[in-house]
């Protein structure tokens, strides 16, 4: 059997690699090795893991700081306001001085509202106009009420000319007194509104 296998071996040894592999095989392998060596540094198991971890941490840090910075000038009602509140809470919990926070807020207000005087003036003018209008309506209402109250007094004056019993006369005079008192009170109120309006004028 060994002899027979030796004959087969003769054929086996005749198997030759192709000419391409003989001539350029090593060159191709050398290039493959060099390429692998270049990548080796970046693909070390520990290095690659820490690199991935570092990139994720860096990304998270950038996003957090970016949002905190963008939300710094946010006002209540803005989308970023909750983030601002959160970042303020974090800063205060980290033990930052409150005075610094107040100063920062003052600076923010200063920068975020460039014309505070004009806007305040406009707002106050608008308010005065509104008050005058309401004063006028109040005045008119009082006048109307006085008229209504005085109405029975006129009727009583007209009816005085006839003969009346002393009880009726007494009752009428009482009613007159009440009416007069009420009218006086309403006129005082009217006076108050007028002075108020005068004070409100710019």
């Amino acid at each position, binding site marked *: *059997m060994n002899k027979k*296998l030796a004959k087969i071996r003769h*054929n086996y040894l*005749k*198997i030759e690699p192709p000419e391409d*592999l003989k001539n350029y095989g090593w060159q191709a392998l050398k290039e493959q090795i060099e390429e692998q060596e270049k990548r080796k540094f970046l693909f070390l198991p520990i290095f690659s893991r820490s690199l991935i971890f570092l990139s994720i941490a860096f990304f998270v840090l950038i996003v957090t700081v970016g949002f905190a910075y963008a939300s710094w000038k946010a006002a209540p009602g803005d989308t970023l306001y909750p983030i601002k509140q959160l970042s303020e809470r974090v800063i205060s919990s980290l033990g930052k001085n409150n005075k610094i926070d107040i100063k920062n807020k003052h600076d923010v207000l200063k920068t975020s509202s460039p014309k505070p005087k004009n806007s305040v003036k406009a707002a106050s003018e608008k308010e005065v106009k509104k008050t005058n209008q309401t004063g006028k309506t109040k005045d008119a209402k009082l006048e109307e009420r006085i008229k209504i109250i005085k109405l029975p007094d006129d009727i009583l004056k007209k009816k005085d000319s006839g003969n009346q019993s002393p009880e009726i006369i007494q009752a009428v005079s009482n009613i007159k007194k009440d009416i007069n008192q009420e009218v006086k009170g309403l006129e005082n109120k009217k006076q108050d509104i007028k002075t108020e309006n005068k004070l409100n004028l710019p």
Partner: protein
Amino acid sequence: MRTPGLNKLVSRAQKGEKDAFGKIYKLHLKEIFRFIYFSLRNYELSQDLTQNTFFKAWRALPNFSLSRGSFRTFLFAIARNLIIDEIRRKREISLEAVAEMPSNEDSQEETEKNELKRVVQNALSSLSKNEQHLIVLHFFEEFKFREVAKILGKREGAVRVATHRILKKMKRYLEEKNYE
């Protein structure tokens, strides 16, 4: 193949000298290629696996130690692992392709001899891949049983017993085909 300067080349290559590894490549290219080709019968695939064998050898070179065996044994072990991986990946490699082994004996007088060779080759092909590797490594590549055992990852005694059993199996195959 016993090359006196091989160990020196290996130690130089271990230090990172690519030219030394290039010399090792040229020394072992032929035997690694034929070992792979004999198992797979595919020229292009055998070329790829040969390159891959040397590439893996280069990468594993820092871990290689002569105390665990020769560099040649180390190379054949890598090649064998790649062959097994490839066979697991594609199980459709035809055993009939064994008959395609190159032969220059074209004369009419050699026809009978060729016929015998073909039958022996068929007997070899009827063996499992492990058995084929054992025969090829010991009888064709002239590795000692100790070296074959290292390449196959078995004990030397087990390899000796297996060789004896395989030869008997092949003999029986030839008897069945009337080629004693």
